[in-house]
């Protein structure tokens, strides 16, 4: 096959908050940068973030980054790396102020400062009182941040490859990752982008589950590219189920609704969170609240005809406050459930939301893997940032408001590192030839069409996969559900092998894009179920009914998963959690109560 080839110093895959923050710094420094995105930048899913971004600014209550650090470590159920968490929490006030200067229209306090709201899992003085640490632009914070970052990139004249789908990383003959294969969606042309450094910022993948808060495009492409390149994914058993998805739909009702005073009630009208988290109640960590809701429903206290949800009640709040602070939530409930939240409670149930695991990196965003001797090794010119990366600042459970923070902090850190590195590296005088065979095979697989021989479409198969994963790897897991999940995935993989496409056009061939995405989702399904089956404990969002407590003696460690052949026999390895922060004393694991 023949491909047009382009040359850059840096290629960033993804134009969400993480990719755009990095791109802005690179463009400003004059690095020849290209940003590749499946969708127009402002359509990236960062746009959907509602509640806000955490930083110990202390605009409402006195605050301290060390308290933020403590809360994040506790929230992570001690699986987060304390060096990375310290770095993030210390950088937070600075990156938020920077966003403000980029134009983010934050809501304001009477004194003109950035408004901050209380969010789950945050406290003053190491667990004493509820904090107010989440900087918010009403309940449209992600939109506000993403648009502002895109606008600044327009000013900085960043080069975009919009509506280009990245297919795979390409190694050169020396074995170094040297290029990226992309598909121009509008023309069907494949292009090779050669680059001295590549940064993956492809976002989340909760499309793996039937009920989710994620966009259709959130299919974990970057993670699957890493697996196909023979590298590792970390902690893939940890998926956050957000407690309050709109029942039946999965659309997010932000934690901001509880932060502003919303209460969860069961069918008897009882505010049940007091039984699960006597102090923090509605604002306990997400894993705790999600399990509480699932238990209420399982034990027959669910609301509605089918008793399949609980109520999120905001009716006692001042409706002027709701209109000012939660306008988008109000709009969502009205559009999708016909409910005015000022008058009626919202039916909610947990929904797949966020991937704590991902591509392992150090705090400079550089991708880590294991070498042949089983030692951790850094790939200097391959970066991952944002939700697709696992630094790991979220460990086994992410706190609300910490992901928007993660994406801008590490987007910036990775860009800094990349600039520093390129300035020391001599330019290659010639490019080593690329090994295009693996990616060509994959391309050819989906160039062929044969409507007659196929059973199902990529879209219908995605739904099937989502159901398998929700049943086998949901809020509660056991050896049995996980084994069943493996059997189902084995059968399902055979179905994908037989899939044939029907759309012959080269122009905007959605079916082909979905086929690539389906392969990616399937790769992540395997990573998730294998990692989950091996971890015989409950920690954060990974809850095993058959091993219901945390087991620090055996499991205070990160999972690394590699794809192998056949794919139902995994290769797993474990690396220690970094308990030593950069400059402050460690927070040793202790029992986690809210």
């Amino acid at each position, binding site marked *: 096959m023949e491909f047009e080839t382009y040359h850059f110093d840096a290629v960033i895959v993804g134009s969400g908050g993480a990719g755009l923050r990095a791109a802005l710094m690179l463009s400003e420094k004059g690095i020849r940068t290209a940003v590749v995105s499946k969708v127009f930048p402002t359509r990236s899913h960062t746009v959907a973030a509602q509640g806000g971004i955490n930083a110990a600014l202390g605009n409402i209550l006195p605050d301290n980054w060390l308290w933020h650090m403590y809360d994040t470590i506790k929230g992570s159920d001690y699986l987060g790396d304390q060096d990375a968490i310290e770095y993030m929490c210390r950088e937070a006030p600075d990156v938020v102020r920077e966003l403000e200067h980029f134009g983010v229209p934050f809501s304001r306090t009477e004194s003109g400062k950035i408004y901050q709201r209380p969010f789950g899992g945050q406290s003053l003085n190491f667990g004493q009182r509820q904090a107010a640490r989440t900087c918010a632009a009403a309940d449209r914070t992600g939109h506000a941040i993403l648009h502002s970052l895109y606008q600044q990139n*327009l000013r900085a004249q960043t080069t975009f490859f919009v509506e280009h789908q990245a297919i795979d990383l390409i190694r050169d003959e020396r074995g170094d990752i040297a290029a990226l294969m992309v598909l121009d969606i509008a023309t069907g042309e494949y292009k090779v982008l050669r680059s001295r450094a590549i940064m993956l910022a492809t976002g989340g993948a909760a499309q793996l589950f039937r009920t989710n808060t994620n966009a259709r495009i959130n299919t974990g492409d970057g993670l699957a590219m890493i697996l196909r390149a023979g590298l590792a994914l970390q902690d893939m058993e940890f998926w956050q189920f957000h407690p309050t998805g709109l029942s039946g739909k999965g659309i997010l009702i932000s934690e901001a609704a509880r932060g502003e005073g919303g209460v969860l009630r069961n069918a008897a009208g009882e505010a049940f969170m007091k039984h699960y988290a006597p102090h923090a109640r509605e604002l306990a960590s997400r894993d705790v609240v999600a399990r509480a809701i699932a238990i209420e429903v399982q034990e027959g206290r669910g609301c509605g005809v089918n008793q399949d949800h609980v109520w999120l009640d905001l009716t006692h709040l001042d409706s002027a406050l709701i209109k000012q602070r939660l306008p988008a939530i109000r709009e969502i409930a009205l559009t999708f459930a016909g409910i005015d939240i000022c008058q009626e409670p919202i039916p909610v149930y947990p929904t797949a939301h966020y991937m704590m695991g991902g591509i392992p990196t150090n705090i400079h965003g550089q991708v880590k893997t294991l070498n042949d001797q089983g030692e951790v090794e850094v790939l200097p010119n391959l970066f991952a940032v944002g939700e697709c990366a696992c630094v790991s600042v979220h460990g086994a459970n992410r706190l609300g408001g910490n992901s928007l923070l993660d994406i801008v902090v590490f987007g910036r850190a990775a860009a800094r590192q990349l600039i520093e590195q390129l300035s020391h590296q001599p330019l290659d005088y010639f490019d080593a030839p690329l090994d295009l065979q693996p990616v060509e095979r994959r391309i050819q697989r989906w160039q062929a069409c044969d409507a007659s021989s196929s059973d199902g479409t990529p879209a219908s198969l995605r739904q099937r996969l989502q159901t398998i994963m929700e049943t086998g790897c949901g809020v509660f897991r056991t050896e049995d559900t996980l084994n069943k999940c493996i059997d189902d995935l084995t059968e399902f993989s055979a179905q994908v092998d037989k899939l044939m496409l029907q759309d012959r056009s080269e122009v905007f061939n959605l079916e082909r894009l979905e086929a690539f995405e389906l392969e990616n989702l399937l790769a992540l399904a395997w990573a998730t179920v294998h990692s989950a089956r091996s971890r015989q404990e409950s920690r954060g969002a990974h809850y095993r009914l058959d091993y219901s407590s945390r087991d620090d003696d055996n499991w205070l460690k990160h999972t690394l998963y590699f794809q192998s052949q056949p794919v139902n026999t995994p290769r797993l390895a474990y690396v220690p959690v970094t308990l030593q922060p950069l400059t402050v004393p460690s927070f040793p694991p202790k029992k986690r109560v809210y």
Partner: protein
Amino acid sequence: MLTLRFSIQRYLPEQDRIPRMQLYELALAQMPRDWMLLDALEHLRQQDPTLAFRSSCKEGVCGSDGMNVNGKNRLSCITRLSTVWDEVKDKDGIIKIHPLPGLPIIRDLVVDMNQFFQHYAAVQPWLIPPAGDRDHELLQTPTQRAELEGLYECILCACCTTSCPAFWWNPDKFHGPAALLAAQRFVSDSRDQHTQTRLQALDDAYGTFRCRNIQNCTANCPKGLDPSGAIRALKRKMLTE
């Protein structure tokens, strides 16, 4: 049994010289109360995987799925199926879907938005804060912040601009309502240092003043924003300053 009929504009550049309408049918037990138009379109794609349209967030915030439905520009993911069905069921019983008008068609309901985004970039939609002190927040009172309400929430779906006759007539010169709404957003931001330069640059017979106050933009904004009002306010500011 309820059979919904859709007439959808198709165009495959490799085989069609000009766009054509294709009829689709969707049989349902009854009208699903909570379905959006997008849910129906996804079912049609299961019947015919060659039907192309953009969509992503499914909740009306990414702005991907603007399309013209029964003559009005809307986002398929936040338009109730029952609404568009009610509009036609006592007439010909066919829901009519076209791409957003006035932009080149790439395929089926997918339009080329380049020109739209160029106009957006042309109004320099980025904050220019005071130079210097990056270590403190720029203060903004709640009243100053309130000036941005109804301006910053735009999702760039192009429903407004592609409903505007002034844009249809001069798509290369008239910025269109979405871009002008963005211009007004930065002119109204108390933190911005370039209000005067912005107003001067916008003072252009075509770029801004081609707006003839037809107000299709406001009628077609799926987010309930008022670009027409924003343009009036912008023009007023130009005249007074």
